């Protein structure tokens, strides 16, 4: 009987091993994990899904070829692209907009892009005072 109780408690402790370790690490053994945001900022992990960015190639030209695959794959349908032809008979996005308020940060768009023009950055501070502010146009997405 006692044996079985000990066994159960042992199992519980095993299950909680990681949690307890963090508990100790952020209390007695180390400093607290809570960040004093916004005074303190968090550094996201490298593969974090944050705000999108449109990339340029080495010559400073937009990489996006306006294939619209990102818009097609987006489950939240928050990417709107208008396409046109430039003076060199190439296709480009005459307008490219992501409604970040509807984006679910799945990253499908980045995966779909055949030319690696789209990236998700670590930027996570996306609050705005207006809904319009949540609409990211091409200029904002191409930011340095």
């Amino acid at each position, binding site marked *: 009987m006692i044996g079985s109780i000990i066994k159960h408690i042992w199992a519980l402790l095993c299950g909680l091993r990681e949690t307890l370790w963090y508990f100790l690490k952020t209390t007695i053994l180390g400093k607290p994990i809570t960040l004093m945001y916004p005074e303190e900022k968090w550094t996201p992990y490298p593969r974090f899904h944050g705000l999108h960015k449109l990339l340029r190639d080495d010559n400073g030209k937009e990489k996006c070829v306006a*294939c619209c695959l990102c818009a097609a794959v987006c489950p939240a349908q928050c990417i709107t692209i208008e*396409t*046109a*032809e430039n003076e060199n008979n190439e296709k480009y996005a005459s307008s490219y907009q992501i409604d970040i308020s509807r984006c679910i940060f799945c990253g499908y768009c980045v995966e779909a892009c055949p030319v690696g023009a789209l990236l998700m950055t670590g930027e996570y501070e996306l609050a705005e005072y207006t809904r319009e502010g949540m609409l990211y146009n091409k200029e904002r997405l191409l930011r340095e």
Partner: protein
Amino acid sequence: MLSLTIDEREVDVKEGATILEAAEAAGVYVPTFCYHKRLMPFGACRMCVVEVEQMKGRLVPSCSTPATNGMVIHTNTAEVRKARKTLLELLLVHHPLDCPVCDKGGECKLQDLVYEYELTENRFQDSKFGYPVDYYSPLIERNTNRCVLCGMCARVCDEVVGVAAISFVDRGFKTVIGTNFERVLNCEFCGECVNICPVGALTDKLFKYKARSWELKKVNTICSYCSTGCTLTLGIKGNSIYRIIGDDTIGVNKGSLCAKGRFGYQYITSPERMNSPLIKNEAGELVRVTWEEALERAAKGFTEVKEKRGAEHIGGICSDRLTNEEVYLFQKFMRAALGTNNIDHAGGFSYSGLLKGFKSSLGYAANDITLNDVRCADVIFVVRSNLSETHPVIGYQVNMAVKRDESQLIVASDKTIKLNKLAAVSLTHKPGTEIVLLNGLIQAIISENLYDKELVSSSTEGFEQLKAKTARYGFDYVEKITGIKEDKIRETARLLSQNKKVCILVSAGLGIISDDEKLAQAVANLAMLTGMVGRKGSGIGFLGEKCNSQGTLDMGALPHLLPGFEEVSDEKARNAFEEAWKTSIPSQPGQSALEMFEGAEKGSINALYLVGENPVVSYPDTAQTIKALESLDFLVVQDLFLTPTAKCADVVLPAASFAEKSGTYTNFERRVQKLNCGLNKLEGVKTDLEIFGELSLKMGYEMNTSTPDEVMKEIGTLVPLYTEVNYSRLGEEGIVWGSPNGGKETTLYGEKLSKVKARFIPVEVDEAMLEPDKDYPLLLLVGSVLFHSGSLSTKSPELDQVGPGGWVAMSMEDARDYQLTDGQPVFVRSKRGEIALKVKINKKQTKGTVFIPYHFESQPVNTLTSKDLRPTFVEIRKG
């Protein structure tokens, strides 16, 4: 019948079918690149290979191998898949695979098959070709790098369209699809090649980089240009049309379109379109007002004229581009709300062949043939019709009938036209002598005893008069007048009276104004004589110019006929309408368009309502037209654009285009087809249907119908021909009125003309009319050109780009005599006016004639012409 087994499925097919056709019948899918059911089998791509147990040891191309009895076929074995996969790998060796920016992406056969066959890498490698892309041809972009050499474009251009503008150039690895001497495309720009290309090698420039195929909503509707009635598939994104394609499974055209239908839609979004009603202020300027004010003013204007002078002083003319429902409401408005029978359409000329000619000879103001009859005919006789320009898709059928099924084509024309290339007999006659030629043919048929005696004696009357009246058209006389030799007339007479399937095709419309009534009667005489009316698959096609030429007649936009061809003077018929409309209709027939214009000058017509008509540009004798419009007290014009006619108006009402409304059109076959609304209306416009309803209400008469559907229900109750027509039954194929079984039988006249009273009406022309004046030595031929229809198409910049105006065509001989060179500015003068144009030398033009198209505002050819149906003669001097 053959029976065979395909992938374990038993199937029976007709003798002569290919394995691929059998597979299709069995519901088995076989991938193809170079096969299309509209084209002859070609066997170029080998994608369609299958295994046949009886032909062991090799794979056979199913598209070009005839099926035989008892064949056992496997379409999807490992070996077949391997062969297809290798083929795809080979195709991809040189393929640029720029799918992300290729406009075909998403509907590309190569893409789909590469995906289906899970091709992730290629065993073969080579450098890409890097051919230059043709960015310079109008409307069509050619990127040879993406071509899979299926040859379908070249074949459709030759086998269907009959142009052969492109073909294979060079051999082996270097083979490409090209034009002669690598020039830019200079063809009919029908876009059939673009439509059929399985990959992105030929693309629509208007659609270039505008959207991806999967973003487009597809709406099937009916073309608003000519009376062929092709089904268009609009590609819509947001609230604009991005492209138009043909769907080869539906419509009378089975996917074929012409340049007008495919590329002529940009007028819908033209910035020139009106988006607000206008009324004329005291200063005589048109100013923007609200709908309320405009309708108020229109109603007040009509009421004033009605009260001061009487309803018979008001007239209304509509266009034959309105839908059936709109035409019906228009004439109801005129008859019931205003109380006048002064109603007409299309200038009053364009339909006289059908209405006066056919109705008096055969009893129906309609054609009795279908597009399919033309395709299947043994003999096709084209009279006064450049149908490859006016009705291109009918032209395709003629081309296919001749090239594939060896139909005999006879072309009677006053100049060399495209169809002459295919003709077994070319009757290139002197201008204006068609009727003499037809009488000559009748004479030849009678004198040689070739006519259908049984039919003539049992079902017709007036044969003796015909015989007597045509007796003087002997071969010598006909040759003197028309220039056609005896042997050709004999040959034609023989071809026409073989008791086979014969179709006669004639074009009509504002472009070709002449005595259509007589021409139609002469054609009807010939048709009755040879027994072709009432025979299955034979008949006459009098091809109206606009999309609803037939429907506008059916719906009674006529001074003397109510909807359904009921005489207004017939009390019983009138009563039925009066009862339904709860008002009285005047019993006297009204005035025709011509009479209204004359009356306007004389003061017997004081107010006009013009709907979609642009008489200043398209009616003959512009000076008289303008004078008439100026003498009116009140003019209301309803149109999409501020046309020269609209500029004369007191009230201008902006209307919606065909893509912004629903309704029905009736094509030349009498097929009632449904228009499906694709776009929301441009802000500020209303459909013609709404305008009629609201205007009528303002005049104190309520129509009780607000949607096209309701109007069609009302039509169904009052017009027996249309009782079958019900929106829920229309479907993709439409309904041919007057034919049971949804148009499968063409029984308008019944077997051996049993359903009608057929009469021979001998016709003659005043041959002296064709003598030129010594001051005006050249005969002016006015007409339509391939890229335009009416004056509407000129508002589409793309059509204007390939078919610009501003020219007069003349023969090489005349140009030499007048010492004119191509492109030289000249003045063309007739008794009525003068216009400045540029010379276009055309070796097909007949000496002594000049040709000017009538579509263009900037080229007002109608300032030269007259309304009296007599030919116009002109002189030319250097400008």
